[in-house]
């Protein structure tokens, strides 16, 4: 260790710097596409979970339990290696014509994260007192309009911090996409390491990027929490 020669120029300029930057871009792409899709699916599952129709509710419950209690890595491998047998031919053809590694990673990340988001949304809705709905209904709003104007606007405000946390989790989890060859940040850091033997520098660079991402987003949530959710609290 003492004889190790540090060479930070490897990761601050030139080809390897560009590899890391492109890796960061892929990480961001995975995270942003993933969170948007996961929010849509998660909202759907949350609504199904609260439905009065039992089969729908049970389906949502099975979905939640199964995908939350299975490792993400196994889900990624399933979609990448094993999904062709259960998907229709047309879907397989379409997936193979696109960037399949990226698509498989997005599918796995979306489904995994949506299960967590659905529970966040549900607990957001459940945290709104029942009287709000009763008051809205007695004021003449229909069920859907009460949801639209009274319940959901409040629930969404409460759900924003957990959702942002899920976004961060997704960004961190997207590092697993390297196992199927998606060239995101961790993958590129490892590439730089194997090309230059400067593993310490390469992993420090990737670590700093992840930390800046998570620290800045956590700080934003903190501000949101203070300004929007609890503007009147003293501390």
């Amino acid at each position, binding site marked *: *260790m003492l004889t*190790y020669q540090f060479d930070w120029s490897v990761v601050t300029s030139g080809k390897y710097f560009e590899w890391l930057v492109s890796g960061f871009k892929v990480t961001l792409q995975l995270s942003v596409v993933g969170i948007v899709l996961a929010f849509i699916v998660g909202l759907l599952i949350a609504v199904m979970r609260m439905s009065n129709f039992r089969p729908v509710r049970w389906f949502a419950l099975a979905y939640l*339990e*199964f995908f*939350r*209690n*299975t*490792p*993400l*890595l*196994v*889900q990624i*491998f*399933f979609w990448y*290696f*094993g*999904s*062709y*047998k*259960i998907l229709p031919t047309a879907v397989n053809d379409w997936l193979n014509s696109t960037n399949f590694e990226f698509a498989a990673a997005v599918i796995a990340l979306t489904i995994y994260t949506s299960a967590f988001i659905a529970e966040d949304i549900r607990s957001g809705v459940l945290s709104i007192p029942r009287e709000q709905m009763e008051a809205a209904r007695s004021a003449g709003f229909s069920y859907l309009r009460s949801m639209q104007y009274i319940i959901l606007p409040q629930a969404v405000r409460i759900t924003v911090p957990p959702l942002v946390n899920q976004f*961060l989790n997704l960004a*961190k*989890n997207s*590092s*697993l996409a*390297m*196992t199927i060859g998606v060239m995101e940040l*961790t993958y590129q*850091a*490892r590439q730089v390491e194997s090309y230059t033997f400067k*593993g*310490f520098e390469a*992993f420090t660079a*990737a*670590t700093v990027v*992840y*930390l800046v*991402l*998570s*620290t800045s987003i*956590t700080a934003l949530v903190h501000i949101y929490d203070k300004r929007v959710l609890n503007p009147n609290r003293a501390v």
Partner: protein
Amino acid sequence: MDGLFNFHVITDNFTYFMIGRFPHGPLGGLGLTIYLAVVSCILSFFGGLVLGLLSLVRNPFISYPVNLFINAVRGLPLLMVIFWMYFLLPALMGRTVPESQTVIMGLTLFTSAYMSQIVRAGIEGIPAGQTEAAISTGLKHWQVMLYIVLPQGLRNMIPSFVNQFVSLIKDTSLAFIVGVSELTHVATQVNNRTMAYPTEIFIFIAVIYFFLCYAFTSLSRWLEERLAWRKAI
């Protein structure tokens, strides 16, 4: 092949999935997954306890760096932590470190940071009146923590610890990356050898993980109800 799926690949390799080459070789498969999860869980319980207590110390020269460290680890992907261990452990210890130990250290470090937040929340959840009452009876600060606050706090933390153990079981799958032959690694091996049955293999191990994790998730829910303090009203 008759039908869409062929689960012979599972029955043929069943013992390999469960224990690897165990009686004649090292433990692998599901057995190794459970071993990794249990050892890391025990270690990170103590790691989390120490970090959690240190992060609450009044002296900012102790609590500030500890909190910084906890937040840094929580901001990183587990994969990154495992790679760091893979690099740093041999350099720090001056010898090669077996992959399974690397993974255990990585999982322990990572999970300790999360456990410390559970410990912290558990301690902060005990009303200040308890501490004040204990101090007024003449106990010292460390005695208050050891005999009054922690016993009550730890009880409240149990369900969260079980949840963390479930995450740990799922996280052991990352040991695959550094070549530790736990369940996921065994699955990819069998998949590479047999080529034709990836769907069957990955559905099978997903189901195994699911039953294992679901059992503990249910335990945690049951404990949460069971351990809830009876409220006055």
